[in-house]
């Protein structure tokens, strides 16, 4: 079986996390390849959220290591993760409802106006913020937001997702983690968000997608990481497995067997982009 060995961009080996008597992660491995959408699925209690929290810096694992581009990283907070380029879009979105789209995009990273006005009076470069925000939005095809100066709370759920994703994608990130992005959305809006995810991937950003929604996973994922009982028990692809088989593995009805750990080659045409 010929597989092009592509070094993973984000990797975890032997992660262990305990909360009191409960072991959430019992030696989990993980790898994310450049330029792919990796879906992470698992039943409740499988350790899915603990795994993601370790990768996003929200939680520090008790044992094991995380490697970014082959180098170990030690992340003690979400800000540390952000600093190395791992951006997370949380389920609660983390957008400020009363601020406008541009403000939200630049929250925490606001550019100051040039010259004295900026340094002494600390004035923000509003015009630049608006320009950049418009650019990012249109690059990602979030064209439905007419006015960048609209308050975010007046946007629909799907549009807010768009703002949150745009923020994650905009600032030189290496990896984006999306936590249940379509959970609160209707069919039409979910479709828009999925398109957005594909566009992010096409920009060259690998995406870790946590989801319970099998059809959506099968629609966009390149590979599927199946978490069960604190460990990664299988990595499959939509091409090699059916939805039922995947669900069966996830719930333990079927043993992963020989199908586990088959890493298909990256199809031609999708080169690794930095």
């Amino acid at each position, binding site marked *: 079986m010929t597989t092009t060995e592509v070094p993973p961009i984000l990797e975890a080996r032997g992660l262990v996390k305990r909360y009191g008597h409960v072991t959430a992660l019992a030696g989990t491995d993980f790898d994310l390849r450049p330029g792919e959408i990796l879906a992470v699925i698992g039943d409740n209690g499988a350790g899915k959220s603990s795994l993601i929290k370790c990768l996003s810096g929200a939680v520090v694992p008790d044992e094991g290591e995380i490697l970014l581009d082959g180098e170990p990283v030690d992340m003690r907070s*979400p*800000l540390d993760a*952000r600093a190395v380029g791992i951006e*997370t879009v*949380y389920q*609660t*979105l*983390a*957008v*400020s*409802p*009363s*601020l406008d789209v541009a*403000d*939200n995009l630049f*929250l*925490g*990273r*606001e550019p*100051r106006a040039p010259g004295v006005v900026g340094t002494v*009076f*600390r*004035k*923000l470069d*509003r015009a630049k913020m608006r320009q950049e925000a418009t650019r990012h939005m249109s690059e990602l095809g979030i064209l439905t937001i007419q006015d960048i100066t609209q308050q975010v*709370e*007046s*946007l*629909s*759920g799907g549009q*807010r997702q768009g703002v949150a994703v745009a*923020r994650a994608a905009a600032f030189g990130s290496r990896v984006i983690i999306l936590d249940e992005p379509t959970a*609160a959305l209707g069919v039409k809006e979910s479709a828009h968000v999925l398109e957005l995810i594909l566009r992010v991937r096409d920009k060259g950003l690998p995406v870790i997608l946590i989801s319970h929604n099998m059809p959506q996973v099968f629609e966009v994922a390149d590979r599927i990481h199946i978490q069960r009982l604190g460990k990664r028990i299988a990595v499959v692809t939509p091409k090699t497995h059916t939805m039922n088989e995947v669900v069966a593995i996830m719930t333990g009805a079927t043993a992963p067997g020989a199908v586990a750990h088959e890493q298909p080659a990256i199809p031609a045409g999708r080169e690794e982009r930095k």
Partner: protein
Amino acid sequence: MSRLFRRLVPAPQGAERGATVVGPERPAGVSTRIHDLLHANATLGPLFVLVLAVVIFSVTADRFLEPGNLSLIVQQVMVVGTLGIAQTLIILTAGIDLSVGAIMVLSSIVMAKLSADQGVPGLLALMIGFGVGTACGLVNGLLVTRLRLPPFIVTLGTLNVFFALNLYYSKSETVRGADMSELLLWTGNTVDVGDTRITYGSLLMLALFLVVAYALKQTAWGRHVYASGDDQEAARLAGVRTDRVLLSVYVVAGLICAVAAWMLIGRIASASPQAGGTANLDSITAVVIGGTSLFGGRGLVVGTLFGALIVGVLRNGLTLSGVDVLWQDFAVGVLIVAAVAIDQWIRRVKA
């Protein structure tokens, strides 16, 4: 916002974070249009009320509309207006500060006594007074951010502590203006404007409003203040150092209370430990009537100026019209309830 407060005032219906109300398209009726207008700019309401009040009183009371009287009203609200700025900052972060009056009085006593009793030069006494106010704000901020105690409870406690310190240091005695440095009384000095006069203190208050309004609108810090109040968790996850922002807000508020102390000395030409009894509530009144939401994240500081002026206009206008004092309190109470009700209505978002 403290959980205590949430139980007292339930959050507005339908404005849960992230909820969108999708309904059939309704033709934009007048009420909807007003709603949207106010939603976009919550200070229009108070401005309208202010203008309306001025119009009404110019009819019912002689001499109301004279420039002398109007500048008088501004002077009368100068202390509460300044405290209102401090209170606005804190309420924007979904907190509340019950100790602003106590911080103000403590600072005023310290600067006055240092000048009058110890002969400390005016400028130094003033700076030390400012330092005291800032320190009090720091205490509040640390208790809120480090110990994670609800602001309502914290400032309820510090209110009593600062007040006790005030009584201890002053021995309940008033310090007369004649005994203190001229500088401390400067805010009460007047300057001619047209054919009327206005105090330096009022001008200082207006300047402070401008500065704070600018900071809130045009700097990153201001954006972070709004974000921290609107949804603290979201702001934190987005990378805003909410603890630092909150702490800075309390510290700045403490300093502004000390500036209000300077204005108080100018206004009453003395420093009295019994002063400012209703200042806490008056500052909250001005903020609420001015359209700033008690749930945080919404409102403009200029609204507080309108709120303070509305109360000032009401009291002055009713007195000039010969109306009993009882009705002044009644009117203010009605205004507060109306303001909060309107705020609830405005916050309901229709997608």
